[in-house]
């Protein structure tokens, strides 16, 4: 299994073979506050890198969730739709959003590693 990568839109992505698991970062959940609603892409649909692939809402506002790579949605996490507070509790593991069969592995190269993302998150929230 490859290392976890991060996008500038605060998604994380973990690649296992040609299937990527995608969610939002802990830093993103801290910025959003209590998440009370989650909408996920439909299974079987295709999503394009940097396109909208879902929505999360806090008590304050709605925010789009983007996909950091292109692919076909092969699975979605119903658990976070039924109980969105799980996203605040465990954003970078059990509260994943969707899984993609990826189209172009080279898209992974455009993303940040953990150190770079942490630096980026710190800079942009300052």
């Amino acid at each position: 299994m490859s290392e976890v990568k991060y996008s500038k839109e605060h998604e994380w992505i973990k690649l296992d073979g040609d299937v990527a698991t995608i969610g939002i970062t802990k830093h993103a959940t801290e910025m959003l506050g209590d998440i009370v609603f989650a909408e996920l892409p439909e299974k079987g649909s295709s999503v394009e890198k940097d396109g909208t692939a879902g929505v999360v809402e806090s008590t304050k506002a709605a925010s789009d969730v983007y996909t950091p790579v292109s692919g076909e949605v092969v699975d979605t996490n119903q658990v976070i739709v039924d109980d969105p507070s799980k996203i605040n509790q465990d954003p970078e593991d059990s509260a994943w959003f969707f899984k993609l069969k990826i189209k172009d592995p080279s898209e992974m190269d455009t993303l940040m590693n953990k150190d770079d993302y942490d630096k980026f998150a710190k800079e942009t929230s300052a």
Partner: protein
Amino acid sequence: METKKTSLYQLHQDCNAKFVEFAGYQMPIQYSEGIVEEHKFTRNHSGIFDVSHMGQLFIYGGEDLSKDLEKIFPLDLKNLKLNHSKYSFLMDKDAGIHDDLIITKTNEGFLIILNAACKDNDFKILKELLEEKYKMVLDENRSLIAIQGPKSSEILNDVINGVKDLNFMSGNWFKFENQKVYITRSGYTGEDGFEISITNDFVDQLTRELINKGSKLIGLGARDTLRLEAGLCLYGHDLDKDKTPVEANLKWAISKERISKGDFIGSDIIIKQLNDGVSKIRVGIKPEGRIIAREKTKIFNQSDVHIGEITSGTFGPSVNGPVAMGYVENEFSKKNTKVFLEVRGKKHPASICSLPFYKKSYVKGVN
């Protein structure tokens, strides 16, 4: 214009507040625990809200003042008892709402609590309408805090003895550290509670004592979810100059006695609307499922005709689901009417419901 800070700014910082600019003030939107926890703590225990940005307008006068204010507010002020409060509105001649407010009769005249964003304009309007006959002070030297929730009476009474005997929508002067504080049993969360007017120099000390007794500071974020669950309006969203009290479904706040006579600003329109009905009216709206329909969301009927708009919508932590209110054409305002809400291009089913979403537990009392 520079944003103002309330006298509790340092305490907010000490409690790790996240700040937002609201009506020209740096106000806490939430603290470290977050809106949902703060909301639930208020419902189950006791929360303190800094509402010092709101206007505290003291108008000094006797019977003449009551008479003159009756030309402005649709209230029976001559018969309002000392230290009793009423909810009302400042209207224009078309009955459009310029602000909603709480007015209390004091031993020296009246105290009117105004919305922060409206207070300066309200002051101007009232000064003109009262023809500068009375001394009016929009007091910047006093802070205002609210303490709300089932444990608030016990906690506040521990610090300021006697407050627990106040009835709902009534108040009195009390002493804290030899300072005169004016306390009313009121609030805007759907819970039992109090609003405390105290000099700026002592508000920090009082608030810290209330925190030591077990209450917690609560931000504007939870204040919004609490008031929406309680079915209460927020000026600038659910109420504005283009809406009348009858359209806002607030006719309970208009004195029947005054309607029969009619001589207040906007009374022609109010009487006409009470007799002939209104074309749009404020209702509660409960989305099916978990989708949140926020302000400006369009409302459609079952034939896909646009019939109204959401004016407030969020997630209600005590209801554990989405809640909203808005204005719909009168014929679709009946409870249980099926409607559709357009969110992100898709129409989601919802139904018209009665307010509040969350049942009040105010302390009863003579009023």
